[in-house]
Each structure stands twice: as structure tokens, then as C-alpha cells.
């Protein structure tokens, strides 16, 4: 089984964010980066499928600046076999522009499965996976939380609001992975050492037309919280009074 996993280098969300001088981006000075959370579940899913099949290849593909190689290297240290880096100076916001670059690359090989995280936690469009599927005319199931593959067919579960769907599809296919499918493994020391010898191929990205851009970016208003009503059970009546009269939610 040959599996591609598309991964993205995103800002580490723990930091305090500031808006950049262009008023339309996050000031990245001093901030750290990591793989988008959901992408690690996609990597884990690919590795588990390969392990279960007993053979195959898992390829990590990332669009981004030179530093995206660090992200690919982390995937390699988890057990991915090789990487493809689609080089751009700056990752566009437009999910279509990103998807066309990925689809151009993915279309040059025959993958049984193409996996994505459900969304990248920075731009949060949740669109690149299904757009790639459309561009390649492949079956697609998004936001899966369970997966079984056998005999070139798959069954997946996706969570809806208050319900779930059981979905069947043929391979090859594009899947996007939600939390709950698995717990992503951490790179082992052996994995980290081995990753240094694994190949990463770098190519210029063929980014598609940009039709949607970030014109401005703002920090949400600060919450003026921090009001302690009291301590212990004794504070309950005052809390209920505030919920009734001030917040008017009771």
C-alpha cells in the first residue's frame, strides 16, 4: 500500500500572538512551529495501515518555505519513509491555491490513499483535502474518526452534530482525519536518528490562482474576566444571583 500524507508547518499555539506590521498576519518573531495536530493523526493512520499490511510506503508531502523540511523531518522520525517538499516562500491562505500545488504533485504518482488532517489549526479552512480530491477526481471522506480498509475498499465513520455517519468508499481515495481515530506516536530516539538518513526531495511548488486573501487580521477583544465570586459552597447563592440578574442566563 502506497500512502501520501500531506502535512503543514503551523505556529505553536501556546505563545501569545501579536499582529504583524502588515496588519494582515501574525508576527512570527520568536514564535515556534510544529506539525498541525490533526496531521499527526493522519501520519499515525498511514503508519498503522502500512504496518498492518506488512509492506508499503508512506510519503510525507509539505508545501512551505525551507523550514517546512523540519516538519517533514519530524514525520520521518515518526516512521514515514520519505518526504517531498514543495517549496514556496510563503504559504498562501487560499485553500484552492494550496490544493492545486499538492494535486499537481500527487497526480504524478499512484497512491492508494492520500491522507490529510481534518484541518490545519492555523488557517482552519478545512478545505484543502476535499479540493485535492475534486482536482484529482478521487473519492473523498472527510473528518473520519474510525477507518477500516480491506480489499481495495474502505469503511469510515465521521462524527456529525449529535450523530455519526458510516461511509463506504473505494480506493484510491482521499481521507481527512479527525481526532479520535488514533493517538499519534512520538518519535523514538532511533526514529530521530534514522530520519536524518531518509530522503527529502525538494521541488518548486506550482501554486494555483489566489482568489481569497487575508486583508486584515485582528486580535479578539480581551475578556475582562477574573472576578472571583467567593470560596466553596457558601459562594453558590451569590453566583446564582449574578447568573439571574447580571448575566441573565437563568
Amino acid at each position, binding site marked *: 500500500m502506497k500512502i501520501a500524507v500531506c502535512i503543514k508547518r503551523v505556529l505553536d*499555539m501556546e505563545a501569545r500572538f501579536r499582529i504583524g506590521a502588515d496588519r*494582515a498576519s*501574525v508576527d512570527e518573531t520568536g514564535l515556534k512551529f510544529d506539525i498541525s*495536530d490533526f496531521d499527526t493523526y493522519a501520519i499515525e493512520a498511514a503508519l498503522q495501515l502500512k504496518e498492518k499490511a506488512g509492506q508499503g510506503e508512506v510519503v510525507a508531502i509539505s508545501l512551505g518555505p525551507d523550514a517546512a523540511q523540519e516538519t517533514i523531518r519530524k514525520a520521518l522520525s515518526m516512521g514515514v519513509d520519505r518526504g517531498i517538499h514543495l517549496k514556496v516562500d510563503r504559504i498562501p491562505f*487560499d*485553500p*484552492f491555491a494550496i*490544493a492545486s500545488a499538492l494535486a499537481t504533485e500527487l497526480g504524478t504518482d499512484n497512491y492508494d490513499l492520500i491522507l490529510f488532517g481534518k484541518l490545519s*489549526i*492555523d488557517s*482552519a*479552512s*478545512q*478545505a*484543502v*483535502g*476535499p*479540493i485535492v480530491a*475534486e*482536482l484529482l477526481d478521487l*473519492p*473523498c*471522506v472527510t473528518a473520519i*474518526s474510525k477507518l477500516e480498509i480491506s480489499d481495495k475498499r474502505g469503511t469510515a465513520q465521521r*462524527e*456529525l*452534530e*449529535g*450523530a455519526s*455517519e458510516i*461511509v463506504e*468508499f*473505494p480506493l484510491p*481515495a482521499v481521507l481527512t482525519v479527525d*481526532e479520535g481515530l488514533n493517538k499519534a506516536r512520538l518519535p523514538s530516539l532511533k526514529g530521530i536518528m534514522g530520519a536524518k538518513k531518509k530522503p527529502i526531495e525538494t521541488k518548486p511548488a506550482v501554486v494555483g490562482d489566489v*482568489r*481569497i486573501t*487575508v*486583508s486584515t*487580521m*485582528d486580535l*479578539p477583544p480581551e*475578556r475582562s*474576566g*477574573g*472576578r*472571583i*465570586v467567593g470560596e*466553596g*459552597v457558601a*459562594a*453558590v*447563592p451569590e*453566583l*446564582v444571583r*449574578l*447568573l439571574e440578574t447580571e*448575566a441573565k*442566563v*437563568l
Partner: protein
Amino acid sequence: MPNVLAYAETRSGELRKVALEAVTAARRLADAIGGEVHALLLGPPGIASRAAQLGEYGADVVIVVEHDHLGMYSPEAATATAATRIRDGGYRAAIFSASAQGRDLGPRVAARLRVPLAADVVAIELDGDRILAKHPMNIGKVTATLSLTGSPALLSVRPNAFTPAPNARTARLETAQPAADPAAARVVVKELRQGSGAKLDLGEAPVIISGGRGLKAAENFRLVEELAAAFGNAAVGCTRAVSDDGWRPHSDQIGQTGRMVSPDLYIAVGISGAIQHLAGMRGSRTIVAINKDKDAPIFKIADYGIVGDVLEIVPALTQAVTASRAKH
């Protein structure tokens, strides 16, 4: 014609609340540009009976697409049908919900039509004839204003961001066939499993009671369930630590990798307030925190806090809420 299409989401032959939200958002945009709202309603035979309700919220035209195989969502048939209608109808914009179904469908339609999609938007504005959309990014730590070039523009609106607003008219009915045969689709939804009981969904509940590790044991979630029951209109959520430990299902998790919620009231029980959790609930209107550690970060964003033992305070709060609701 500067008309706006609204995709009216259904499940099991019923309209969902998010369908009314999409129509409401479409109505507002259509009024601003001087056009009509056309609602696209896909479902099993009989779904046409739901069209009048879309008229009550502002749809001038309802395009009804009935098919035996549309009792469940068919991504491929829905994509082809929506894309064909949007292309042939010459719409200025099309509005989906950023629900599980809408976030699956919107990108497919955008790709088919080669048009821009602004996903998960909380507000739509016009700048001259350009459409701008507000979209929370980076786990809600920033809000982007997206600028969409070209027509039609596709947008998916975050559930709860557009409150359904009555705007009654008698909708004209059109019927259409699916643009791709749902019976011939490659991707097929075989089964719809309802969630446990009649509990409210986290995305739709006006009140959410959420529990963290501070509850000490899985069985103490009973206290959270009881508080939710006292409110009567509350759903139960949890932190990632709790779902990772198997105390609650992953589908209940609120945060960076779980659900993003913005209820009227959010009560955080035994939750310290890790960034990854705050990401999912900081948009709530009123936040209450109950935690034994007075320095817990959750108190910095909570409107009201009580410091102390959740196992004592929550049952007392349940009693007080029950009494308050009996009064009103």
C-alpha cells in the same frame, strides 16, 4: 441578477437549524446587494413539505430536489447538484453552514466551480461590490478578514453565529433532479447513527457544562450530568485530558482539536484552562469557572469564579439552579 443561494441542510428528512441560519445569512447579504434568496433543499421524497419554513426565514425561491437516495447525505450528488445550480443560476454568492455536512460539501463545490470559499465565517460584510468575511483563525487567537475575488463567492457560516431571523414570504417552489445519480455514487453513507439519548448537541446547546481532570474520577461526571439536567437546556463537554483518559467520548471534547463552541453560558468544572481548551470555548458569552486552584488560568477569562472543591460545590449549584428555574 445579484441573487444569493442558501444550502438548506437536512438530516433524515428534517430541516436542521443550521439551514435556517444559512437562509438568514443569505437574506442579509441579498438585502445588501438587492437580490433574492434561493434555497436549495435536497432530501428524500416529501422534503418539499419543509420548503414553506425556509420561506418564513427569507427564501424567495426554494429549489426542491427529492430522491430516494437522499435520505442520507450523498456528498457526490450534493456537490454536483449544488455546483450545477450555482453555475447555471448566476449567483453572486452561495451560503453553506460550517456544520459537519457543510464543511464537507462547501470545498467540493468550490473546487468544482473554481471559485473562492471562505470557510467558518462569523460575519459577512460588503466593501463596495467586494465580499469580506470574518474568520477566526489560529484556534480563535486571531480573527482574519478575508477578501474574496470573483463571483460567485462561497461562504460557510459558523453554527450559532447567525441567529435564525423570521422574515416571512411565500416562497416559490421549483423542482429539480440531482445533477449526479446518488445511486451511482462512489462514496456512500450507509448508515446514520444517532448519538446517545436525546441530549443536545454541543454546537447547538445554549448552556454547556464541561468537566476536567479536577473531577478526579470518571464516575464524578454524574455531578456534571446532574447540573446539566437542572438547566434543562444544557449539553455536557469535557477537556482533552478527560477524553484521552477515556472518561468521555472524543466527540464531547471542547478545544483546539475538538469542538469550538460559543454558548450563552459555559460552566467549567475542575478545568485549569490550558490554551488548547480555551481555544474551543473562549467565545462563550458568559463563562463560570469552579476550580480548587485560585491561580488556575481559567479564572483569568471567567466572568464568575468560585474557588473550592468541585465535588461539594457542583451539587450545591445543581440544587440552587433547580430552585431558580422552579421560580421562573
